[in-house]
């Protein structure tokens, strides 16, 4: 490990905060270097994760089998009703299809699917190969939509055409086609859409409950526990509340332009940000002060029970150090605050998809000496975790075993979270999970902590 440095060409994507000297902005928004062991995924992945939780639509992956196989039910985006999103549908393109084109196969697959499952809509994802062989998936979708009478929406998510962020945009484009096609009758003036909340482990339900308690109508959640009919009438809401800024800000901007719906950015992680996300929505409806009253009531009640229950964790975790490497930068901000509230400091902060502004803000938030990285890789992560003596890594599936090999605790703040981490209850769960992992007796057996024979 020691002799492996930072990847050549990546120096500008890594920064150690030092207020004493002028530091250049971190370079981001770039493709990964050829030959790097990148933790990033592709355009298709971006589209797939955003649309995945829409549970009463079929999601057909047009391409060879892999793209459908690897994305089959790997995200715990829960549905309260239909579960079509948890099945794997593929056109399973073969060599002959690549030579002669896959349009016919796509058409037949769609017809078969719609007949079998009677979905409310269909999303068709194009993969790398479809972009190359030039299948006109728009035409096929149009034809099938006409024949079946349901929206059939192409998602242009060819893997190589950009980064994961471009995939988010392709997904949002498909959603935009649905929004505005439903009736807005009976929607309250005091209404919102929840954007960028995917209902992992049921988180959207928790958030929705808070808002409903405040007397606000939630028109649709994009896309957690998503339903096509709700998406179609999303333009009837008065405000868009955007979490996971990476994936949904574009959609919020489009909706603002097209339907005049303003948006705010929020985060549901940690006490501070969770409370703010309720207050900020209430502030949007000043003519009804009861909403703010209710928001205050919720916060005060929740904090009253939550705060004491966090103290035991805080006592144990005081002074422990965390490293954060997650997908979106916005989440990193919340995690830093949430970790501070349980006595932990952050020694490494990074994201796969942050932009320039995100990193500027991240730098501002972080303590001196914190390492800030964009699009990192296992070598760097391991190096910094050891150098900075982190006790905990927060990341996703590919980071987990690295942390464990190093003898460092881990918390999955990505697709594989098993318990809700959003909301006030989520903060408790987060603290509990961090506590359980950091304090686990297993680390005392690990050689790094002197646990060898």
């Amino acid at each position: 490990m020691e002799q492996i440095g930072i990847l050549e060409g990546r120096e500008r994507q890594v920064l150690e905060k030092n207020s004493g000297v002028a530091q250049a902005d971190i370079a981001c928004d770039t493709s990964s270097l050829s030959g790097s062991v990148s933790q990033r995924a592709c355009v298709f992945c971006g589209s797939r994760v955003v649309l995945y939780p829409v549970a009463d639509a079929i999601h057909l992956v047009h391409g060879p089998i892999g793209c459908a196989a690897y994305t089959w039910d790997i995200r715990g985006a829960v549905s309260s009703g239909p579960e079509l999103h948890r099945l794997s549908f593929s056109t399973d393109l073969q060599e002959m299809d690549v030579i002669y084109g896959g349009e016919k196969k796509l058409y037949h697959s769609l017809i078969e699917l719609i007949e079998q499952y009677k979905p409310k809509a269909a999303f068709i994802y194009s993969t790398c190969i479809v972009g190359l062989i030039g299948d006109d998936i728009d035409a096929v979708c149009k034809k099938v939509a006409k024949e079946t009478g349901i929206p059939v929406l192409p998602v242009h998510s060819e893997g190589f055409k950009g980064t994961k962020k471009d995939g988010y945009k392709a997904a949002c484009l498909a959603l935009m086609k649905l929004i505005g096609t439903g009736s807005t009758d009976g929607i309250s003036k005091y209404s919102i859409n929840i954007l960028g909340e995917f209902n992992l482990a049921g988180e959207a339900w928790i958030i929705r409950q808070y808002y409903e308690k405040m007397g606000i109508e939630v028109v649709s959640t994009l896309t957690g526990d998503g339903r096509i009919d709700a998406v179609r009438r999303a333009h009837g809401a008065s405000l868009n509340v955007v979490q996971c800024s990476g994936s949904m800000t574009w959609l919020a901007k489009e909706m603002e332009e097209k339907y005049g719906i303003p948006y705010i950015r929020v985060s549901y992680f940690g006490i501070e940000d969770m409370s703010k996300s309720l207050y900020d929505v209430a502030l949007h409806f000043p003519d009804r002060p009861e909403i703010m009253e209710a928001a205050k009531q919720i916060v005060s009640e929740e904090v009253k029970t939550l705060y004491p229950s966090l103290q035991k964790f805080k006592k144990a975790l005081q002074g422990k150090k965390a490293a954060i490497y997650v997908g979106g930068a916005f989440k990193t901000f919340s995690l830093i605050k949430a970790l501070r509230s349980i006595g932990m400091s952050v020694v490494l902060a990074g994201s796969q998809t942050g932009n320039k502004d995100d990193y500027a803000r991240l730098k501002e938030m972080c303590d001196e000496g914190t390492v800030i990285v964009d699009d990192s890789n296992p070598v760097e992560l391991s190096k910094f975790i050891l150098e900075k003596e982190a006790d905990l890594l927060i990341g996703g599936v590919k980071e987990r075993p690295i942390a464990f090999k190093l003898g460092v605790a881990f918390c999955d703040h990505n697709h594989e979270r098993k318990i809700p981490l959003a909301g006030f209850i989520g903060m408790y769960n987060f603290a509990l999970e961090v506590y359980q992992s950091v304090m686990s007796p297993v680390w005392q057996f690990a050689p790094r902590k002197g646990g060898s024979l």
Partner: protein
Amino acid sequence: MLLRHTSKEVKVREGLTINPAKTCQPIGAMYAALGIHGCLPHSHGSQGCCSYHRSTLTRHYKEPVMAATSSFTEGASVFGGQANLLAAIDTIFAVYDPDIIAVHSTCLSETIGDDLQQITKKASDDGKIPEGKYVIYASTPSFVGSHVTGYANMVAGMANQFAESTGEKKSQYNMIAGWMEPSDMREIKRLAKVMGINIVLFPDTSDVLDAPQTGKHVFYPKGGTTVAELKSSGDSLASLALGSISAEPAAIALEKKCKVPFETLDIPIGLSATDRFIMAISKVAGVAVPDEITAERGRLVDVMADMEQYLHGKRVALFGDPDQLLPLTEFLLDLSMKPVHIVSGTPGQRFEKQMRALLEERSPETNFKSGLHADMFLLHQWMKNEPVDLLIGNTYGKYMARDEDIPFIRFGFPILDRIGHSYFPNIGYSGSLRMLEKILNVLMDRQDRDALEEKFELVM
């Protein structure tokens, strides 16, 4: 009822695959390459491919899985990926310093016509490959075959690109591993040792994907077949290829290139396949079967006899990969169980023929389908029409098992929700005994669960 939509009526499908019983070639190539010591697999395609394969392998093994990607962009897909791959080779040797880069292609790079042989040759001609280092490759288009094909292609690539014949034979045998777990590969090495023969086992993912906790993240774990061993495979006396689909192509390559004779065997899952494996070693190396092995066999047969009454006629549905399904089906028949439905998404005439031959002789009424549209949706439909007592397959089988409320054994790739496959073999006599134990446990647990109180037995 996650699969509530599965209908009983089986219709011919023209396009659609639902809930696949296979995945694409590149992940197999990546897995195989991890079985070479000091090797960094490299995915020549979009960065999503590499990320998905690493994630899936990480979930299956709960181990860090390192691999690099060419990170294709729009430009690369128009002008070809040669520049990306050459740049990647530079970067990888400069920063990650592997002994070997094992490049596999993807649907994208195959379709734009990148020729890995030509590009790697150019890398070599341009001096991009440092002295004593290697770049090997395998063509693994995702729209042909399955993950098993990708594995086979990469293993054949190892034989083709490393094996040398010096003209002087070595007193050793090649053992070419079909797709199996690190635990199985470890067991192959143990059995060879007990039989008293020297082997070159490749690939070998033991001590790579079952690495101990050391407090370090080691980029290249200590396991894996070494370059010296791979080179020497050309001087071996003979090769045993374990698996006609996933291992035999490498044996053929060795025969062609270095005239090493070979025999193809099933992966030794179950009694009969292990018998053939042991006898093949005994014959090819002229060694007697030691008592230790005979005793292992005896223990397996003993348990098969002890528990025979709980197995007879039990109906099983299974899905997975050809080289595992064939000996597993035979083992189930040896246990007097009844394989009722068998599905594999991996296409291929060879497997089709082998499985049909086995079934024709011993279980002609079994439903069997492989290749296109042989998916879990079809298997589930079959199960609805002709119910079974047990399902065996990878993790994705859990939906069907839950919906049909039947016992389920995880076997194959991927297993995303249980541990054990990395550590405890399913091959050889003792591995088969473990498989048998698993079968008995789930069946007898179910019997206990469902038993009327007066029939709830203490002694079974």
